């Protein structure tokens, strides 16, 4: 059983999934933050792979990527961060999230092998819809990595079937039509969408985009199997004074969300 499967099976409540960008604002701080996430209450960690042109992200995560790149962030560093994290955490699922070009530049096959060897469990490649899945699908499967697919408010039944064909691990329901960290979803409308997805698949369904507060998490948690909080956590790095204070702030924030 994969870490992702085990986590969803064993949890008696919705999973809290947290996002930070690898290397933001620098390698040491980012690694330290990643390490404290599970203890603070994160059930699954999502790690962003920095990219110069994140066309599906809002300003907060755009800036996080820019900080990481400015500090020397790159794919090798992201994978080494995962290896460091795995040294003292063998349980918490870790999912890499990002864009296709850095993966293509690294080499899709080598990327999947190295990611799996480093301790990655799944991949969310934002700009790789089912139509272009060939770029990665066979290599990810061979390496035992889940391909986590996105479902959105504009996904119809036929499209949902197509998305489910190659999906594994869990489904990521994008709660709004928009970029990360912007608008907020209406829980009532969301409920209908999630139920529609559940009728078609046994995969856990998590909800992300625009979820910030303990209230949001509680409301979405009643509907979904998991809730992703990204921009609200990343914001801590925007105003960071020193490493210790930002880690303390993140620990408190996640404890309140969990």
């Amino acid at each position, binding site marked *: 059983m994969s870490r992702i499967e085990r986590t969803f099976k064993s949890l008696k409540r919705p999973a809290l999934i947290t996002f930070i960008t690898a290397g933001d604002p620098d390698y040491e701080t980012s690694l330290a933050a990643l390490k404290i996430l599970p203890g603070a209450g994160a059930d699954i960690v999502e790690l962003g792979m920095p990219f110069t042109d994140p066309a599906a*992200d809002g300003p907060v995560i755009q800036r996080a990527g820019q900080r990481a790149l400015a500090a020397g962030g*790159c794919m090798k560093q992201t994978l080494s961060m995962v290896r460091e994290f795995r040294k003292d955490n063998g349980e918490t699922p870790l999912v890499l999230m990002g864009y296709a*070009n850095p993966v293509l530049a690294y080499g899709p096959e080598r990327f999947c092998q190295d990611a799996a060897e480093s301790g990655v469990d799944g991949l969310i490649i934002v700009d790789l819809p089912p139509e*272009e899945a060939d770029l990665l699908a066979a290599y990810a499967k061979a390496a035992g990595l889940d391909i986590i697919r*996105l479902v959105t408010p504009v996904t119809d039944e036929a499209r949902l079937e197509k998305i489910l064909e190659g999906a594994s691990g869990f489904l990521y329901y994008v709660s709004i039509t928009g970029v990360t960290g912007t608008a907020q979803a209406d829980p009532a409308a969301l409920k209908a969408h999630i139920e529609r997805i559940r009728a078609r698949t046994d995969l856990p369904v998590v909800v992300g985009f625009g979820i910030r507060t303990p209230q949001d998490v509680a409301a979405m948690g009643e509907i979904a199997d998991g809730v992703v909080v990204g921009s609200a956590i990343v914001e801590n790095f925007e105003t960071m004074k020193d490493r210790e204070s930002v880690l303390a702030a993140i620990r408190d924030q996640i404890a309140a969300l969990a």
Partner: protein
Amino acid sequence: MKPNSFRSGPDERGHFGPYGGRYVAETLMPLILSVEEAWETAKNDSSFWAQFDELARDYIGRPSPLYFAKETTKHLGGAKVYFKRDELNHTGAHKINHCLGQILLALRMGKTRIIAETGAGQHGVATATVCALFKIPCTIFMGATDIERQKPNVFRMKLLGAEVRAVTSGAGTLKDAMNEALRDWVANVRDTYYLIGTVAGPHPYPAMVRDFQSVIGKELREQMTAREGRLPDTLVACIGGGSNAMGLFHPFLDDPGVNLIGVEAGGHGVDTDQHAASLSGGKPGILHGMQSYFLQDEDGQIQEAHSISAGLDYPGIGPEHAWLFDQKRVEYVSVTDDEALEAFQLCTRLEGIIPALEPSHAFAHVMKHAPTLSADHILVMNLCGRGDKDIFTVAEKLGVTL
């Protein structure tokens, strides 16, 4: 293996060999598929083309003339040089061709809002123009750097009723404007049509924009046959994303006797890190919905392009060009900022035509190439835009205060 035809692409998945495709966020996929469906229907509908042709004639002013550049021919002392005069189109460049086609498609799709990105502002002006004509609100995304160097076009867009939104991310140029337009589109998928300004982006845009721009090459075939009784020997066009070149080249791809030359923006030189020559200096990658050639580092991070011409200042190129480059059907060369600046001045004085800085790149290559050819060699350059918008940039480069 050599394909039977260079004109049959893309395949049904929108690929030209490995290039093209639909690398977009899932939120955009249903919309991209509906654009494709609408386009497939429209392009087989004679009433769609009747509407396009009528407005192309009466509103744009097509066909654009084929002009024998006698003074250039005499000065360069080699090939017989013609200009395809797409700078005489309404709004002053070839961009209006695909804006007209796409606005008609957006109307068929029932979309009520238009967004577009622009670099030099020519595509933005052309978009704002057709939106004014059809009374559709539009928002133009333009890099803050480009807004500064293309002030006349910014004012034109505003006069036409467009909202011009300054993009400050990245270097504030065309690439960043396209990212921001995509972000807006994700947030407004239900009512908005993204009117992409070149043969780039996710399928079907590269093929669709090419088909609208192919009016250039089709007219040229007829005009040249009528004038010279044969096809031209060489076609030259500048390339940023590659829309004017694709429109010129496509009807000639299966005529092996016609040499096709695309001129990329070499900035300070392709051996420096200050250029926009994606084919000469880049490698295959994925950005803005497509696989193509991009300027990027080893980690796959996209690098900033540089060109004196805002319209060529883009670190990628349309996927069909990437494929034609690999197939060696089109020869791709580059010229520097300085060479383009010199060409700008020479064309202006020789022919009394002020070219935009974009086709000045094409002219700069003609200046090098034409003298090496014989007097019976017919060379056609696409004069794809007029240079009024560039006089401030040129004045500054020449040290003149206006």
